[in-house]
């Protein structure tokens, strides 16, 4: 598929996310976040020049010299507008005001209500697979106005009926359970994978197909998903990255080709 679009999955996901980000929005980006940084800086170089993002760990604001680095990397200091300390940043993530418009996250598992898991597969006391842990994920998924989930490998073990460990609240048990349990409205907006783009049906909050990448079928998605994915009619084909998007991404955002050398 990457050859069809003349881009890698990481590049495709960066472009798809960038399109959904708006001018003037505020975002927080976690650790190990090449796609997230690329999406924010691509949007800033296209339609959202005052989109504002901060590195969760390092606190550097709007770092951009055309090179994608780990967000905690001290070299981002040289190309940022400000630096915020970590405990201060944790304080900022508020509730009804939702200081952050969006966050972008990866996960070991996501379920049909958009809850995510980065802690463990199997029981916590005796996991089959032990993941890295939670760090800011609970706060970002619970308290940003919306969040995106990046799943570069769409398979049944990653798209599950119910996450084995819920450390990133999506729509909890679906319907209105998220707000019933005291979390602000919002939650997961889009999930982007190597197969397609997905959102959540407004009333049940179940995951559904928005578009499929070129060559991908509904059956293929269902076969690789551990729950019944909602489908309304015949989903459209994902709009491929434009020449302009790819040019700006490769020349102004990721000039050293970090995303090209990734998957």
């Amino acid at each position, binding site marked *: 598929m990457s050859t069809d679009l003349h881009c890698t999955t990481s590049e495709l996901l960066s472009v798809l996310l960038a399109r959904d980000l708006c001018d003037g929005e505020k975002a927080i980006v976690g*650790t190990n976040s090449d796609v997230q940084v690329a999406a924010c800086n691509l949007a800033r170089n296209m339609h959202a020049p005052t989109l504002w993002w901060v590195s969760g760990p390092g606190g550097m604001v709007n770092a951009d010299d055309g090179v994608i680095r780990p967000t905690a990397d001290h070299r981002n200091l040289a190309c940022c507008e400000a630096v915020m300390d970590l405990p201060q940043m944790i304080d900022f993530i508020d509730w009804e005001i939702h200081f952050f418009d969006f966050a972008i996250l990866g996960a070991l598992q996501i379920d049909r209500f958009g809850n995510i898991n980065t802690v463990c597969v199997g029981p916590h006391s005796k996991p089959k697979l032990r993941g890295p842990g939670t760090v800011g994920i609970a706060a970002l998924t619970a308290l940003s106005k919306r969040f995106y989930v990046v799943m570069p490998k769409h398979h049944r073990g990653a798209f599950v009926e119910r996450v084995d460990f819920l450390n990133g609240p999506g729509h909890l048990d679906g319907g209105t359970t998220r707000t019933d349990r005291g979390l602000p409205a919002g939650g997961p907006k889009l999930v982007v994978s190597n197969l397609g783009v997905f959102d959540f049906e407004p009333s049940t909050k179940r995951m559904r197909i928005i578009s499929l990448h070129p060559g991908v079928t509904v059956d293929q998605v269902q076969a690789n998903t551990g729950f019944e994915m909602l489908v309304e009619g015949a989903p459209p084909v994902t709009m491929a990255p434009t020449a302009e998007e790819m040019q700006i991404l490769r020349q102004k955002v990721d000039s050293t080709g970090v995303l090209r050398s990734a998957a």
Partner: protein
Amino acid sequence: MSKIKSISEAIDVIKPGMTVATGGWIFNAQPMALVREIVRKEIKHLTLIPAPGSIAPDMLIGAGAVKTTGCIFISFEQFGLAPNFRKAAETGSIGILEMDGPAIAGGLRAGACDLPYGLIPDMCTDLPDVNPEYYQPVQSAPGERRMLKVPAIKPDVVLLHAQQADELGNVQYRAPVFFDILMAQAARHVIVSVDRIVSHETVRKSHALTRLPSAFVDAVVEAPFGAHPTVSAGFYDLDEKHIADYVKASADASAFDEYLSSYVRKCAGPAEYHKKIGSPAFLDA
């Protein structure tokens, strides 16, 4: 009243059963020289509270120094999952206190202020189910936002790595400070390794870099390449080959023992370790 100590003397304060925190962030400023000394001294039964980290908690766990570890985030990022932490978790050989960023920040701040606990928002996760001690319910008034209590975290000792310090113990950072300052506030004993010692005049001239004033620091250890194989801002970058070799060695008990023997037990301290890795120079020297 110099705060500079030999690494052996500095680490001698750590006794079995103590709670030890480590600073930095994933591949940044892991206090590896201090960690290696703990392994060298064969100190065991530690409760570990690592800031989001990589090889520092992973090596301590792999070397059998840890009874229970807090886990905020332990990852080898592009190199995969933390190999020894993962193995220990999957075999159940260590206890894990699952925590998130707000819980550790709230707990450390309560520790720094010496309050019994702090308050954080209830984010409706499974964390309280597996760590009920660190996430306790709060009675809330009707319509009031739901919160959780997080008990004060007061590590007995915290291990940090920074770029430079003076003899008095003013510690300077050329990088973000992550949880280091908050950990130093909350901990009862603060040990910092630095790549180099500078004069007090240098510190006064560049006071904006002094993120840990001397009053917060108990011991400074001179350890050039003390964060190796992780990054020390401006002085050395991530040694990717070393990390990859470490991950590979960790797949097998005898290979890992050989790694520890070669890079830890056979190096008497930071100077020998520096030689062992080929006596590299600082980037900005």
